[in-house]
């Protein structure tokens, strides 16, 4: 029964997290901590730290972690399945519709207005993340070097990330 509740709780969280992972944090707090009592607030803060330091969207990471804590392996599977169900359903529908109407002039017109909006949102994210992570000369130096490498070389972004992790270990450890 708790497994089904986990699935439903995270389905709800997935459904209302529009526009980036951090939007759903207050939702998780309400559903998981206040409504169900599956987690305490300090545990939740711990999970956020883990989610931030591991690959993957925050929504998925928290679902897997909370699911495991609450219902073991199956709990982790069902909570994760719940949080991605809306993505699966909506994107399959969107891709199928768009395949049919992509050449329609009105659809084309909407997308011509959407493209600058998407670029603006990415710049907004860069400003947001930059403010939180470029805090001292060392981090600004790392950020600048990485930026130049990404623009001027064909080095794969994954390699660049691994190099930055190595640089962090050398500089800060």
């Amino acid at each position, binding site marked *: 029964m708790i497994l089904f509740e986990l699935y439903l709780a995270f389905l709800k969280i997935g459904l209302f997290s529009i526009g980036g992972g951090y939007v759903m944090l207050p939702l998780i707090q309400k559903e998981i901590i206040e409504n169900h009592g599956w987690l305490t607030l300090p545990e939740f803060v711990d999970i956020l730290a883990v989610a931030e330091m591991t690959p993957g969207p925050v929504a998925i990471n928290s679902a897997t972690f909370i699911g495991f804590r609450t219902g073991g392996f199956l709990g982790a599977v069902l909570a994760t399945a719940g949080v991605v169900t809306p993505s699966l359903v909506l994107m399959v529908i969107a891709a199928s519709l768009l395949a049919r109407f992509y050449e329609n002039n009105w659809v084309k017109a909407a997308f011509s207005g959407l*493209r600058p909006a998407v670029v603006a949102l990415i710049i907004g994210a860069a400003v947001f993340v*930059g403010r939180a992570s470029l805090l001292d000369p060392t981090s600004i130096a790392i950020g600048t070097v990485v930026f130049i490498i990404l623009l001027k070389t064909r080095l794969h972004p994954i390699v660049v*990330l691994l190099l930055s992790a190595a640089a*962090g270990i050398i500089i800060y450890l």
Partner: protein
Amino acid sequence: MNNKAHWELFITFFKIGATTFGGGYAMLPIIKREVVENRDWLNDEEFIDVLAVAQSSPGAVAVNSAVFIGQKLQGFPGAIAALLGAVLPSFIVILTIAMFFTRFTEHPVAVAAFAGIRPAIAALIAAAVIKIGKPVFTRRRNVILMVSFLLLSLFLDFHPVAIILLGAGLGLLFHWLACRQVAPEEEKQ
């Protein structure tokens, strides 16, 4: 059924999922490299359009893009393959941490490595702006729209979904105005 194509979708999004630190936007250069440059699955414009749809729907941008691209290329089995690929790395890593290393975030090596990764994420997103923006900035109207959206988002705290809706609405409005301008001229002739 095309097993090789499904496997390639799975592996590609597994790679992307395994390296998506710090929110969806940091993975854009990685997705672009894998999907647009290395595999030709989408062109530059189609890639931005996928992002627009992925960004305006519920769910993580990385997961949404995976499902959308999988469905577009290989139908529903492709969507499932890409989804599993995008989600499994997080799932495995988090499960391992939840089982064995609950104090992982306090480990000095992890803390130091992450201090190096954090500014790199800002750089990844900034690079995404340049790479993804290039085809958009070729028109002056797009630059004006982009700057206006950015100001609305940074200074008036517009929600990302509001920005997306505004963009689509203005695109439709411009098209409607263009149609109206053309129509009377045709009547005259």
